[in-house]
Every structure is written in C-alpha cells, then in structure tokens.
C-alpha cells in the first residue's frame, strides 16, 4: 500500500480532475437509463415487500405510512422555519404527499396529526398553536392539536 502522504497527494490530484469526480446524480445521469430503470424496480420491489410483510395487509398502516407521516412532520417544521403563505403551505403538502404516491392527502388520517407534530417540533407554544388554528374547522383543528400533544415518537 502507498504511504499516507503519497496517497493523499494522489487523492488530491484525482479529486482535482473534474471529469473524474463529482457525486453526480445517479438517477439523473443521462448516461445510464438502465440504472434509473433498475432503481425504480428496486423502489417498487421494496415497497411491495413492505406491504406484503406488514402485519395487517394492504389497507392498513405500515412502514410506508410511517415514512409519509415523518416526512409531513419534517415538512411542517421546515415550513415554519422558512415561512410562506397559507396557499404555499397547502401546495407544499401536496408536493410531499406525491413523493409517497398520494394526491388526496386530505383523506389520509395521518396528515393533520403529522402537521401537528411538526409544529410541536419547532417549539410552537399552545397559545401560538391556538392562534394558528383560529378560523380552522373544529375537526381539522382537533387533529392538528392531537399531533401537537402527541408524545415524541
């Protein structure tokens, strides 16, 4: 094996050769459609496996639903930190939900609870939460509050 200084010098030389470096996006690579196709297969296969091995079958909660909830929770927290209009917030939920194959996120039971959890994560006080939920229909407000009150998971 080469000694450390030599290896480091070589590493630097290699790293400084732009065509040979780069962390380039594998899936976005224009050179390899087969990578992209196989990557998609892996995603589909992994999800099917998760669904088929979930305890209660296709229609019930599983790890897939958990990742949806986690992402929405993270999104709600990120949005509070970034700021934006109410419409922006709702459009952002759509964007995150679509990553999980969901467009009708309003009918997903975990959506509002996850948003409440995200609001708690960024330290929204109870008074701030009540202010945020002013004018929101009681059922929606209750679900968001449920998430805000939920113990950390």
């Amino acid at each position, binding site marked *: 094996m080469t000694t450390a200084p030599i290896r480091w010098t070589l590493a630097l030389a290699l790293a*400084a050769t732009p065509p040979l470096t780069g*962390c380039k996006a594998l899936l976005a690579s224009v*050179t390899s459609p087969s990578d*992209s196709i196989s990557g*998609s297969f*892996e995603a589909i296969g992994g999800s*099917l496996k998760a669904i088929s091995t979930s305890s209660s079958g296709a229609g019930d909660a599983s790890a897939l639903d958990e990742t949806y909830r986690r992402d929405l929770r*993270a999104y709600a927290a990120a949005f509070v930190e970034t700021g934006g209009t109410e419409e922006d917030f709702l*459009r952002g939920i759509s964007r995150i939900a679509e990553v999980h194959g969901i467009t009708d996120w309003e009918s997903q039971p975990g959506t509002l609870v996850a948003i409440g959890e995200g609001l708690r994560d960024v330290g929204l006080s109870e008074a701030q939460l009540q202010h945020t939920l002013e004018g929101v229909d009681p059922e929606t407000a209750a679900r968001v509050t449920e998430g805000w009150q939920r113990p*950390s998971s």
Partner: protein
Amino acid sequence: MVPAARAERGAPAGVFAFVYVESNVGGASGGHAGLRLEDRVYHFQRFPDGTLRLVRDEWARFRRLYGELQNRPLHLAYLAVDPAAEERVREHLDRKWAGQELALARRDRLMQDAAWSAALGAGTPPPPLRGAGLLETGLRDAEPGVRLRAAVERRAGDGAIAAALARAEQRLAAQSGAPELDLEALREALLEREALRALEEGRGVDEAALVEAGGDTAASLTDPERVALAGFAAGLERTLAGLVRSERPDRGYPLALAIARWHAAARSLASGRLLLLDPFPDDARWVVPERELAPGSAALLAERARALEAEARRVLLGAGVPDEARFAWLEESAGRLAELERGAGGGAMRESPGRLLPSRGRRLPPPPLRADPAALHARAAGALAAAQAGLEARFGYGLLTRNCVTELVRAVAGAFPDAGSLQAALGGELRPGARLGFVPFVFFEQVRERLRVVRLEDLPSHRQRELARLERKEGAARAYLGETNVLTATLYTPVERDGAFLLFTDDAFWPRPLYGVLNLGYGLGSTALGALLAPFDGGREAAFGARGILFSLPELVFQNVRKGSYEVLPEEARAQPLRSASARSSARSWP
C-alpha cells in the same frame, strides 16, 4: 426524541453507519459517501442543474445501484450512537430534505410562471397543464360518466358539482380581471374548472392515457381483483366528493386524476382486463435501446418488469382494497413494463426516474387577461432569476468545498447545537473538508480514526463477489486469467459508459501501471477506429474509445477508477448471500 418503543424494549442500538462507495466511471468517479440510518441512506448528489441535493434512498436500492450495477465496493463504519442522538440526526436530515423540496417547488413554480408569461406575451398557447390530458375532450354523458356524476352528487350533495364549478369560474374571473395576475392561481383555476366540467359533463378518460396491465401476457381480472377494484372505485367516489368541497388551492390535479382513475377502473370491470393510467410524465426521457443499452438489456429488463408487475398485482389487488399510495405502485409497475416491452421489441421507450404518478398534460387556453403580458413576464423572469441565484447560493456544488462529503458532514453536524454535543454523540469531531476530508476515502479514514466506530463492514462489488465464487470453483489462477481481460471474461460484458479497456485493474496494484499502458493503447486504437467509423455511427465508437483513454490515465500512477459496470444482472446474482464474501473481504482489508 428517543424512539420510545426501542428504548423501552432495550433493543440493541440501531444502524448508524457512514458509507464509503469506491470510485468507478460514471456517476461518482471520485467515490461517494453517505450516512446509513437503519434502512435508509442519506447522501448528497449533484444534479444536472448544478445543485447538490440531499437524496434519500432505501438501503437495498442504494446497494443495488452502487454495489451491483455500478459495481463499486462499499465500506461501512458502524458507530455506537445513542438512540436519541440517532433520532436527532434523522429528524434534522428529514427536515433539511423537506426544506430543500420547498425551495425546489418554488423554483419549479417560477419556471412555469416564466414559461406562461412568455407564451402570453407572444400570443402563443401556454404550456400544457399537468393532469388535464388524462380526461377525454369529446364524448359527453356516456353511461359511466353519468353514473360517476350521480355517485359524487349522492355523497357531496345535490348541486355540489355545479356549485364547485361556479366557484372555479369565480376564481378564474378574479385572475382574469386582476392587474397583478397570480399565474399559479390562474393555472390552478383553469385545471380545476376543466376537471369539474369533465365531471359535470360525464366525460371519461382519454384513450391515450391508458395502459393495459400485464403487457403482452395480460391476464383477465380474477374475482378477488374485481372486488378490490370495485372497492377502490368506490373510494375514488368518496375522494371526489371530498375534493369537490375542498378548499385546497391545487385541487384540480387530484380531481382530474381521480376522475380518470375511476373511469379506468370502470372500463376494467366492464371488459375484464386491467386498464391503468399511464404514469409517465410528458417530459419523460426517450431511450433508444439500440443506441443506449447493451444488446438484450431491454428484453432482460422487461422480463424483470413482468415479474415485478405480476407481484404488484398479486400484492396490491389480491389482498383487499388498495389505498391510493399502493394503487400508484401498480400503475407505475404496469407503465414501466409497457415501456420496456416496447424497448425489447426494438422501439424507443420512455424512462423517468423517481416515483411516477399519472400526469398527462394538455393545453388549456386561458381567458382574456387584464394584466400586461410584458410586465408580467419581466416580473416572472426576475423572480425566477432571483430564485435560481438563491438555489445556487444554498445548494451550489463546489469540487473541494461543497461536495457529497462536506455537505454530509455539515448536515450531520447541524443536527447538534454545538461541537461538544456532536463530539459526545459520535465520539469525535468532524470538520467539513478538513485535512483533505472532502475526498470520500480520506473522509472514511477520518471516520475510522476519530469517531466511535464499533464495526467495519466491506461489501464487495458484484464482480468481486462473482470472481471469488469462480476462484473457488475453478481455481484462482484460471479464474484470474480468464476474467482479468474483457475479451475472455464471462462475468463482464462491455458497457458503453465504461469506455474501451482491455484489463481490469481494480484487483491488481503493482502491475496497474503496465495494465494502464495496455488499456491506454487499447483506448487509442478504439478511438482511431472510431474516427473512421464516425460518418456511420455518429462518433459513438470514438467516444467509447476516448472514455477508455480518460479512465486509463489514473492507472498509470497506480490509481484505479474503472471497475466495469452492468446494465442488467441476472436475478440469481441478486439472491447470492453476501455475508460470507463480505467477511472474507473484511478480513483482508481491515486487519
């Protein structure tokens, strides 16, 4: 935030491991790095728009892509990390990803604004609206459409569709008369009105948006599948009733999608054949297999897609009523199979990375607008330029200062309030890029030396593993002689992205410069031949040779980048147990 269940059960600590991916040609020629947390890998990738983005992959997928298809050895350094610290890092990375999505969504919206305002200024039709092309434009009041309308009204209330349509018209009128037009709101109102009109007029799904599941070997619907599909359609009626009353600004797309899905399900139940919506976006990339894939690859990929789609059908329609997320997997697998069958038959096929949702677009003419198109475009272009600059500042790539390693270190460190907490959690300090730490393998050494590493694992590349198997079967010398050159190798078929080369050098250190000279000569020969063939093949062979030359150069100074890669692997190769080979490799590399 401690994962309560695990802490209570006293289960062993989870997976917290830095991953180092060795170099190869293509995606990450200088190597790559990531952080594995349980079954998910967080890593930064450079995208074609120049941004360096946080990407999350399931571990199995990451390993398949990098370790098998890209044929790179992977190395993992597992750390002993408190569950609370692990959860802290995971939450921070997820939030970072969500913030990134927010920024990208804003940029995408502004790009659409710029394209729309340019079209409005030029008096040309604006770009298609996503989802509008799923709905047919002609036939009205066909029986299924009337049935759907009645079902939605039954759930949402009489006149609910007409009332929603009136609201959409009002929104559109408000934008039409506004001096300061909100283009996003205009697009949303246009699409919403179109979807509601389709529902009100009993229009169905556009024929061109349909794909038959099963491709060339389509099977009729079974009784359980019929029950599941009917249940899914009933769920869509509830969805539509909810969306008709919804206040979300972007309800047009889910409305259009649910209508089209319902009609596809109704036609399936009527015909006994499973019809699904085409999941590919309008901007999907067209791939010509003959030019971009090795011979036979499309057929092998189609074979795998067929098995996957059959499994999707079994899992998703054979076990009760699927929800939307699961149904979307079925659409995606059927759509991908249809494309690959076309590719296997010699035709051009579509490909698009990531999760797919049916989104076929169609142009919808906007109403007359009061806003000044020139001012609108100036504003949109300015906002887009500012957003692009913001993205560049936030997610820009820098070879030495902002790459996949430095940003990973920054992201992990950002999860902790100060350096002391980070050190306490990981057992040591990490500084982005310090002491050549921007180079993936140097970074991995720093992780080993400085952090609380409790276990190392080496996962050999696909070829390494298969070569070891061959050595056991045929003897080391015979296997090496046969497999070290591409002319007699049975474990490797030349792939375009690898370039022209003669000898593998990843498993030969001292002879590497000599092999490099031979590879260089081979590359030069291929390039010369390619120059002669250029008028006939568009320079393809010459480019193949040039890539070979480029990746032979490091070999002259004892460095290996190229390891060979694969387009398709036989399924049996995937099923090979990795642990034994991994252990052997571990013992060799990490004494």
